[in-house]
């Protein structure tokens, strides 16, 4: 089979598992929502919340990313399916992109919900002029996070104590996404008078990050899960 077909097959399989199990809908989305509410309780000031809303959205996204990545690799390791994929000779590059694609779809849904929650709970405002920047930021950040999550999720999948190892591996690496995406969303929402044009260089950073981890993940995923 061609690589493209295998990528589709693996992504469709992961999304079908989610459709059957509804772990994202019933557990991860509520977890992300509760996190946003807790941020609101902790800061308890509408001015402060409106100012920091973009950062809180991305922090909640990163916390939820960890749960999502653990889930996406738990389905592979629970009954030895990752080993079976290796034995079946399935192209590791296709496994990486298939899982990253499914993860990106789930992350995108999560980010939209979190952004909506920020608009409702924190009083953040959306401007028509910032929509393109906002959408581009979401796409670039989602691609980068999905690539990093899949790469490190695959790496941690073979270790005992992967639940605690994964945050240690992922959080330092995704710091540029947290910073870049927060600044870009601040510009898109016009937080503290930020202009839309100020956000585009941050989108550039997110795009470079996504490409770097997309290429790096394609090269490294096979050897990582093989050993």
């Amino acid at each position, binding site marked *: 089979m061609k690589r493209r077909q295998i990528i589709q097959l693996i992504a469709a399989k992961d999304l079908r*598992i989610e459709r059957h199990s509804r772990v994202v809908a019933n557990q991860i989305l509520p977890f992300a929502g509760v996190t946003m509410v807790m941020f609101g309780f902790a800061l308890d000031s509408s001015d402060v919340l409106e100012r920091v809303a973009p950062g809180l959205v991305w922090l909640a996204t990163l916390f939820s990313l960890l749960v999502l990545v653990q889930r996406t690799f738990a389905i592979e390791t629970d009954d*030895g399916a990752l080993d079976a994929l290796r034995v079946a*000779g399935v192209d590791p590059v296709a496994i990486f992109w298939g899982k990253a694609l499914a993860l990106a779809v789930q992350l995108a849904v999560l980010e939209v919900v979190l952004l909506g929650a920020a608009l409702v709970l924190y009083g953040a405002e959306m401007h028509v002029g910032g929509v393109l920047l906002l959408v581009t930021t979401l796409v670039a950040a989602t691609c980068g996070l999905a690539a990093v999550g899949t790469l490190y999720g695959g790496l941690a999948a073979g270790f005992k104590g992967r639940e605690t190892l994964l945050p240690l591996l992922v959080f330092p690496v995704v710091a540029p996404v947290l910073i870049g995406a927060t600044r870009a969303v601040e510009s898109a929402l016009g937080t503290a008078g930020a202009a839309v044009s100020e956000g585009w260089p941050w989108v550039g950073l997110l795009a470079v990050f996504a490409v770097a981890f997309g290429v790096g993940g394609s090269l490294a995923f096979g050897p990582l899960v093989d050993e």
Partner: protein
Amino acid sequence: MPAHGTRIRSLALGGIRHVFSVAAERFGELCDVRLLPPAMDGNPRTVIELDDAVAVLGGFPALAGATLAVGAGEIVLLRGPNGAGKTSLLRLCAGLLPIVRGSGRVLGFDLATERDAIRPRVGLLGHSNGLYADLTVAENVGFWGSTVGATTGEIRAALERLGLAGRLADVRVRTLSAGQRRRTALACVVARRAELWLLDEPHAGLDADGRDELDAVLRQAAASGATIVVASHELERAGSLATRTVDVVAGQIAEQQ
């Protein structure tokens, strides 16, 4: 008319071929004697060739110089105490463990340099089943079959062959019994059209009917050309199935019968 002629000819040839294959099977059962393994008694194809193979797992030698030859169509039983190296031998043959010394070929491919060519041709059923608990039986078999480009018909046939085509096909694996999961995993191996089946304790978790069914599937697979290596502690059952028994002791092949 020429089309009819071709069809009649192919039907006739198919019938003759069937009669011969049934007769050969019956003859084999009647004699129940094989002086030499198939690799040496006229079948030129040796599926597994290991020569003083050493494999390391977690810093320890899992295989310490194993030498083994398995011919096409054989059902070989690996027996030995826990930790003897049976599972490591299966994983080496599946291309999952690297060979660090000696040499080995599986299905004609070098174990040191061509593991990627070996893997798609091998079906490994280990201690775990490699199934997705939240997918149905049919979705699991469909997924694994699709990884090698199996058609819908082939996937359907694999389900039917393992008795999973009816109501069970739409049941999620999470709700199946251990035996039903094992059957599903075996259907995945069938759907993947594996040439070499490597089975680690395949009877584990199966009830009496399931075991009989499994044995029938394995015999059928071997008769249709697949080579099967079984590691098992259930010596009586697996022994009656096997065409040859190989003792594995301390990472080496101790004796072959």
